[in-house]
């Protein structure tokens, strides 16, 4: 079966400085620097990584809001990398996004009904207002806002944070997409509401078999939720595998360090933390060889020279580290 989404060495570089009339800054920000990935239908893939590792740029590139520098995006078997105009707009119907901040991602002047119906309006679907309203109510109920009628005329400031995020999810569902990109959809919410929203996403996946790309920097929220985990560092995927494999047996030193930083409630189970030295290198001047070597606790001389390829560890698990091979 064709994967829902396939990326082939996708790159997105930005110009580092402003291009002036007299001088042009030749340096590039390597925000996404060669990502190859396959995501199956109905799968939940978690993209994990620190701030600035390129997670959000990847999402914007997938949405077609940023043009990839090189590489390919295949969507249900078709190459959508260079789509423009109507074809691009049609693709937007099938990839929808839920943003991080539910307080900012709703227009304060638009009612819930207008916000959820907006995608239909943009794509000129269901022009009949009664049919449109039925679809909006359906989407709101799918997003767990019941009774949906009582929310239709509300404005965002009359909703709580969790309710707003449900409205955003309803607006993403109303076009019945095949892929949902969720960029830290719960990080701005109260802890008590996080689980509800995560359950809602899992339930939506089960009911509609939507593929969910879940972008986060928090292992805690994805342990029970994602099918697979992809760990990103400086625009690359350094380790990818089934959730179990990555969490139980992390192979890349970066993944190990991230996992050791996850708080453990039971003090007896706490292990020694692996604190990474230094800060994330600047994505303008990437380190030579393995881009993790300046911070890596187990780096060797060869790490400075060789950029490690992804090493398969099992059918599903692979890590980009020279030391894994041994």
């Amino acid at each position, binding site marked *: 079966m064709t994967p829902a989404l396939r990326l082939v060495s996708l790159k997105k570089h930005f110009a580092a400085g402003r291009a002036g009339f007299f001088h042009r800054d030749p340096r590039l920000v390597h925000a996404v620097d060669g990502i190859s990935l396959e995501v199956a239908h109905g799968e939940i893939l978690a993209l994990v990584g620190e701030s600035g590792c390129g997670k959000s740029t990847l999402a914007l590139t997938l*949405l077609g*809001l940023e043009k990839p520098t090189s590489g390919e995006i295949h969507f249900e078997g078709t190459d959508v990398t260079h789509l423009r105009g109507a074809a*691009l*707009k049609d693709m*937007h*119907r099938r990839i*929808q*996004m839920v*943003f*991080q*901040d539910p307080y*900012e*991602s*709703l*227009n*304060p*002047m*638009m*009612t819930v*009904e*207008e916000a959820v119906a*907006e*995608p239909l*309006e*943009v*794509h000129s679907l269901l022009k009949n207002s009664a049919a449109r309203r039925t679809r909006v109510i359906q989407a709101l109920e799918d997003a767990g806002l019941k009774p949906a009628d009582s929310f*239709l*005329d509300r*404005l965002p*400031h*009359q*909703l*709580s944070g969790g*309710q707003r995020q449900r409205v*955003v999810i309803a*607006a993403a569902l109303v*076009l019945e997409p095949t892929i949902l990109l969720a960029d830290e959809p719960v990080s701005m919410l109260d802890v008590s509401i996080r689980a509800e929203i995560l359950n809602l996403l899992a339930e939506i996946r089960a009911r509609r078999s939507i593929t969910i790309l879940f972008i986060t920097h928090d292992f805690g929220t994805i342990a029970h939720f994602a099918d697979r985990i992809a760990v990103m560092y400086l625009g690359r995927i350094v380790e990818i595998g089934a959730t179990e494999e990555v969490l139980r047996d992390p192979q890349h030193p970066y993944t190990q360090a991230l996992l050791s930083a996850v708080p453990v409630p039971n003090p007896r189970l706490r292990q020694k933390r692996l604190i990474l030295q230094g800060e994330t290198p600047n994505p303008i001047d990437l380190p030579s060889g393995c881009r993790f070597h300046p911070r890596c606790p187990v780096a060797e001389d060869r790490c400075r020279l060789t950029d490690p390829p992804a090493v398969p560890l099992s059918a599903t698990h692979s890590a980009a580290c020279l030391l894994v091979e041994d």
Partner: protein
Amino acid sequence: MTDQPTLITGRAFWRGFRRNRIAVAGLAMLLIALAAAVFAPAVAPYDPYAPVAITVESIYQRPGPAHWLGTDDAGKDVLSNFIFGARVSLTVGIFASFISVVIGGLIGISAGYFGGRLERWLMRFTDFMLVIPDLPLIVVIVAITRPSLTNIILVIGLLGWTTTARLVRSQTLSIKERKFVLRARSIGAGHLHILRRHIFPLVLPLLVVNSVLIISLAILNESTLSFLGLSDPTRISWGQMLNYAFERGAMSSRAWWVLVTPGFGIVWLVLGFTLLGHGLEQVLNPRTEWHHLTDHPRMVSLPAPLNPQP
């Protein structure tokens, strides 16, 4: 009612408006002026456009029972002139500010939203217009063309949009960076949709407030022009009344009523529009409305019932 969700905001707006004393006071002042201007022929005791039969006694008569606010240098009733003068001020103010706000809004929104080279050109042009002193330029243009009411409206309107453009541009810049615009783009919305559904509705309150404030500037400009003698000679306006009073010896005749009356009218209108503008500014902030928690009165603790002592 559910068919028109905007109705709720409309009613909430009216509720907030009535609670705002500044806005209500401004509106009341303006309604009085507007009524006087509209029903001027019925309200004014004399017809200021009637041919005058002038006598020495009828010039600069003190306020009295026949002429409540006295007469001017041509023996005409000051009160009637005053009431008819409101028509010119209001017409110029409303139409000129409408022109200004439409131009300023268009330039500001397109510069702020599209950015890049378009923004640089539009904003340099705006700066250029901004640094030219308005009044001398208006005087020159009106003097060269013909001081008719239409010309005055056009000149004031076409020169008064610069501050609006800058304000609207900065507001647009901040709105377009907000996440709901990114979300609309991720849905696949085009520029027209984003401008119409996201940018314009959020700029509109600013435009409304701004247009109300610009009306007072336009009224002042018109009065200044008339005072300098550049008024439509066929229409009575407050500035023109002041101009005649100064030129024709009202000062030396101690005819204070000829000076104070039109001055009072100008201050009344300008103050009314300014109060209304500031009041609207306070009311049109949607966040001063109710909060999602106020929906449930039970969440607010009720005062304990008094224990009736046996």
